[in-house]
């Protein structure tokens, strides 16, 4: 089965370590999405619900650190855009280039820097760190890859890095 997957294309090897897809958040950081996230997991942390506590502890209203990736996901649709809009575009590029139609995120590491405050404008870029040999797991045969998403605020402060351990694969033939 693993013989069916070609060697890693040079196009992919050339991407390792190269910052790609530098972009800014499509909107200023805002509390509405924070409340949606808090509600989704029933998070009652007063740091986010109580302005006085936020002011006392941080000096501003902030977003939960684990929301970092939320701010960079594109709208599902926006005027003038045709086709599907995807976050973590370098991940989808790798699927396409290596002809691996399915993929899962098998692991994730986040490092959190300066707090993300309401009104912040964030910048990000994606860096492919590694691509594995061919592996077979219970979902199929393919390759693992690691992509770092590094993010900064409008003052150049590092606000966090998300590292994604992905597995792109083909499902076993029935």
């Amino acid at each position: 089965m693993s013989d069916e997957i070609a060697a890693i294309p040079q196009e992919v090897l050339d991407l390792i370590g190269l910052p790609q897809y530098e972009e800014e958040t499509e909107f200023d950081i805002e509390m509405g999405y924070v409340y949606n996230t808090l509600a989704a997991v029933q998070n009652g942390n007063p740091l986010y619900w109580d302005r006085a506590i936020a002011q006392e502890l941080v000096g501003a209203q902030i977003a939960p650190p684990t929301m970092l990736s939320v701010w960079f996901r594109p709208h599902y649709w926006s005027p003038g855009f045709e086709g599907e809009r995807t976050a973590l575009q370098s991940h989808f590029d790798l699927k396409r280039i290596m002809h691996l139609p399915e993929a899962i995120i098998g692991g994730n590491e986040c490092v959190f820097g300066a707090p993300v405050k309401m009104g912040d404008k964030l910048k990000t870029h994606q860096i492919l760190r590694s691509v594995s040999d061919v592996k077979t797991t219970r979902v199929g045969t393919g390759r693992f890859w690691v992509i770092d998403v590094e993010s900064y605020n409008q003052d150049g402060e590092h606000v966090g890095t998300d590292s994604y351990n992905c597995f792109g694969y083909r499902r076993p033939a029935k």
Partner: protein
Amino acid sequence: MSTTETKNLTVDKVSVGDELPPLEVPVTATTVVLGALASRDWRPMHHDRDFAINRNGVKDIFINTPNNAAWFERYVTDWTGPKGRLGRMQFKMNSSVFPGDEMIMTGSVENISTDEAGCCWLDLNVAVSVKGEVSTSCKARVAIPIDSRDNPWNRKGEQWLP
């Protein structure tokens, strides 16, 4: 309300091996869809059952990665109080969590340390289990106050070394 009125865990109240109180969460389709949309994850396997079954080969829609992280954060800061500041999280998904599952979150203190900037860190092992099997394991590194006057959120630049 002020932070003097809220619970805040300080390092003198923690020992290696301490266990966090378990949290039980019954998962519904709403849990999954709400979490996916709140995290702006529009991919169909988190809201479209047909797609999840026929394209992804799984039994139903399932909780997405950023929402998994949000559940872990909520679980950790429920325990630490609002002064608890996450520095790092590493998690590994072994299996997905589906509607109808009862998600049980557990955690324990693996290590307590103070870094060169004087920040106190707890290394936690946290997990989500369904029917006794760990579906996602997480190593979380969270800063907590050394005493009632300390506040990890005041740290920036070289004072913040997650």
